[in-house]
């Protein structure tokens, strides 16, 4: 039963995942090298590539710096200070995830400039965001939750005894913060930073709207306007190379970092810092952030909605909502189904097994591949190999599944730590076949995890743009697609209802997941007796890009 190699039936999904991602990418390479040597040289050594690489890397670094500057103070305020209500900060740190970057960009563009919301309401012609600073602002405002969630969880779980020990060894609170607290945040920061980095590398919508050329923006431009297949394949390859570099860097920095808490650690919470007069800047910080990330986008959407409301558009909205929800629900089911065996292998066959690591990598392969590059690869692949699948729903759902499966693996793996192999063995000894043990013991125990996984994927697919744009059947208009199309044409009023529907459903799901997670954390705390006997001291040594429910929820 403790054989090192998982059964073939469980390995098949892993193999399917790897093939599903690698085969299309192979076609991308094939396409990229399918040109004359002289043409290749001309393409690869264009100075524009260098400019794009510089822009992309610079933007990623800047966004990481800015999101850290926002997320760290917010997480600290929400966990370690007497700032009340803490729940407000938690909401503030999570809700921006419900607003897709392009909706945020749309809102900020539609709010400013000549004829924008701000001018209409106050008469001031506020300069519109564009270029590097515009992109930086929007991406910071709507991706900082990735870091916030990780840092928040890490700050809360940190062993208070470590900081107390530092104080007793003669460090001031400030020195303790830098010498003990911050170093312990490194793994959490790294996995959050990886998610943010992947997001920035893969984002084409915000950069396109702000007219800031990065690899993703260039690929989209090539695809829609110029449609130079060889060049767009090369751009996608270069972007993949850049992503691989970021992954390597993260793995390198993560090496030797232990995530586990050394001391057993009871339910003791870290102490709180008294803010005193500093509560004023703290509130100012929170309110500014809330204004920029939540009030302005929502206000703008509502402003355009009331200003130019067309009742006839309601029918279109209804159709788009149905399409989007249907596709999201379908993808949520298929992705959770694929994620279960992957999570099961990863959790049951341990960190030591080659196979377990392989399946883990397989899950993250699709997630780390920039969606636009993946979509392009799938376009080439399907046109070449299975033309009948090109621009069909099955291909689109398969693409969603392969891309988002990593998101679904995290929560299932977390819940599998509760459904230990010991419990399955107990069921076997009590007379159940392996399959029955799975359905009667393991599945009931991980049901909450399955729901969270499905909800994550549902939300992600709802917001998803690049895969939808390149792969969806003609006439397949989702909420996201309509926001994008109308915003690109500067029809802010027409985009408003779709943006609102998207933001609201996103917010609703986010709140549901959040409630479920915090609710679970509290019940977990309320069972000290169970704690002393059951083996819950399993160190949470998560692999690098762990999309845990508490650490890094890529919504």
């Amino acid at each position, binding site marked *: *039963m*403790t054989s090192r190699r998982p059964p073939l039936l469980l390995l098949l999904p892993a193999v399917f995942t790897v093939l599903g991602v690698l085969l299309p990418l192979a076609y991308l390479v094939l396409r990229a090298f399918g040109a004359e040597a002289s043409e290749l040289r001309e393409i690869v050594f264009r100075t524009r590539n260098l400019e794009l690489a510089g822009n992309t890397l610079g933007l990623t670094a800047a966004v990481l710096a800015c999101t850290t500057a926002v997320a760290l103070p917010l997480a600290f305020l929400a966990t370690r200070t007497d700032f009340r209500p803490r729940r407000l900060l938690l909401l503030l740190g999570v809700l921006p995830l419900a607003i897709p970057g392009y909706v945020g960009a749309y809102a900020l563009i539609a709010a400013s400039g000549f004829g924008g919301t701000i001018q209409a309401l106050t008469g001031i012609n506020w300069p519109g965001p564009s270029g590097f600073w515009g992109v930086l602002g929007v991406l910071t405002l709507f991706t900082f939750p990735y870091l916030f969630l990780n840092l928040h969880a890490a700050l809360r779980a940190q062993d208070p005894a470590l900081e107390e020990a530092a104080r007793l060894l003669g460090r001031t609170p400030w020195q303790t913060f830098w010498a003990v607290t911050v170093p312990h945040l490194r793994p959490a920061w790294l996995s959050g930073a990886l998610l943010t980095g992947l997001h920035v590398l893969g984002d084409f919508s915000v950069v396109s709207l702000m007219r800031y050329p990065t690899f993703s923006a260039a690929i989209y431009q090539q695809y829609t306007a110029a449609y130079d297949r060889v060049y767009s394949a090369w751009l996608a390859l270069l972007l993949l190379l850049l992503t691989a570099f970021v992954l390597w860097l993260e793995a390198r920095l993560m090496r030797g970092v232990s995530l586990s808490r050394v001391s057993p650690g009871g339910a003791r919470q870290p102490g709180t810092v008294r803010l005193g007069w500093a509560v004023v800047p703290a509130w100012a910080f929170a309110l500014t952030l809330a204004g920029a990330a939540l009030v302005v986008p929502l206000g703008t959407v509502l402003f355009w909605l009331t200003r130019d409301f067309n009742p006839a558009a309601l029918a279109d909205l209804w159709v788009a909502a149905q399409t989007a929800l249907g596709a999201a629900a379908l993808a949520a089911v298929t992705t959770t189904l694929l994620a279960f065996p992957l999570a099961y292998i990863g959790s049951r066959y341990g960190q030591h097994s080659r196979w377990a690591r392989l399946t883990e990598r397989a899950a993250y392969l699709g997630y780390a591949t920039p969606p636009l590059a993946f979509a392009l690869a799938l376009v080439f692949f399907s046109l070449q190999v299975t033309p009948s699948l090109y621009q069909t729903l099955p291909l689109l759902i398969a693409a969603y599944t392969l891309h988002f499966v990593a998101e679904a693996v995290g929560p299932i793996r977390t819940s599998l730590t*509760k459904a*230990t192999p*010991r*419990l399955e*063995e*107990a*069921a*076997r*000894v*009590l*007379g*159940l*076949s*392996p399959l029955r043990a799975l359905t009667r*013991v393991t599945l*009931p*125990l991980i049901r909450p995890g399955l729901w969270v996984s499905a909800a994550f994927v549902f939300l992600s697919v709802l917001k998803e743009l690049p895969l939808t744009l390149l792969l969806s059947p003609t006439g397949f208009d989702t909420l996201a697609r309509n926001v994008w199309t109308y915003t690109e044409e500067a029809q802010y009023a027409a985009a408003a209802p779709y943006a609102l529907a998207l933001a609201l459903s996103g917010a609703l799901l986010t709140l549901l997941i959040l409630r479920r997670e915090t609710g679970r954390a509290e019940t977990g705390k309320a*069972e000290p*007796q*169970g704690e*002393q*006997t*059951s*083996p819950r001291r399993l160190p949470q040594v998560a692999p690098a890009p762990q999309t845990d429910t508490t650490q890094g929820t890529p919504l």
Partner: protein
Amino acid sequence: MTATLEPVRPMPAAQHGPLTLTDLTKRYAPGLPPVVGGLSLEVRAGELLTLLGPSGCGKTTTLRLIAGLEQPDSGSIQILGRSMTTPFVPPERRGVGLVFQDYALFPHLNVLGNVLFGLRHLPRTQRLSRAQETLALVGLTVFASRMPHQLSGGQQQRVALARALAPRPALLLLDEPFSNLDAQLRHSTRQEVRAILRQSNTTAILVTHDQEEALAFSDRLVLMRAGQIEQIGTPQDVYAAPRTAFVANFLGRSNLVSGMASGTSARTALGVLPLMQTASGSVLLSIRAEHLAFCSDTEGVEVRILSREFRGRDASYTVQLGSQELLIHEAGGLLRLENTLAHVRVTHAATVVRELGGQA
């Protein structure tokens, strides 16, 4: 704990013991030494047998092999005369009960649900009464609707026991079932579990690394080292007459002294000592710490007291005799000072043991 169970299961045919292991071998990797190497053992009906040994000696693996949670590389397992190894019988068809070290209670089921879990083979009408009967046996009737996390460690332990006992297994396996309890609870729970097993006339195998637990709990003791049986016997026999130096040391620390034997006595650094059995030539003797006593200066040998540990009921001393250190337990009497000289003599006959790893 007043309820009783009618005699468990139909009595097995006389020639078939509940469990027979023959030359059982298991290795985890081809190159490594076997975890369990050629183990043979016969368990009698109704007895409480303990597998005792240091961690890593293969006792838990043996238990998992019997339960069918691991597959042996060679050798055979027979339960009630039925072969479990050719062909391999999966755990769900072996009819053995297992109490896990961490209890492995199903957290999504309440106490009653946990106990009912293994009763699917019974007719529907009998399940509930059987579960309640078993809960009464372990004294947990009032907790039937509690969830596992609402119970104390000792209560969880008894639920685990009830769950394993409810299907009336031919053989109950207990994998260090008391190690998660604190010292005081461990003692009382051990007595309760022993009483319950006796009352239900269950054949049980207990795995433990705690020698005190093994001595107190079992009818027979199996001492294991490096995947092999070192000695089998009743607790009294094994304690009184350890066959090897390892057993002597593991089962209540013993003093090992070398000497020259001839007939029923041996010459040693402690003087000429009487022996339990006749021997000749160079031998290794085991002398229990309580079989050494301080005496007046006119008899015995002189030793230096290195350290003292007062333990209430008695005191233990580490003394130096030449280059060797000896352990002495003394009950009552005055406490002696550390770093002083004293005289020591042997009060009981010594046991000849096999050297570590050597042949007798």
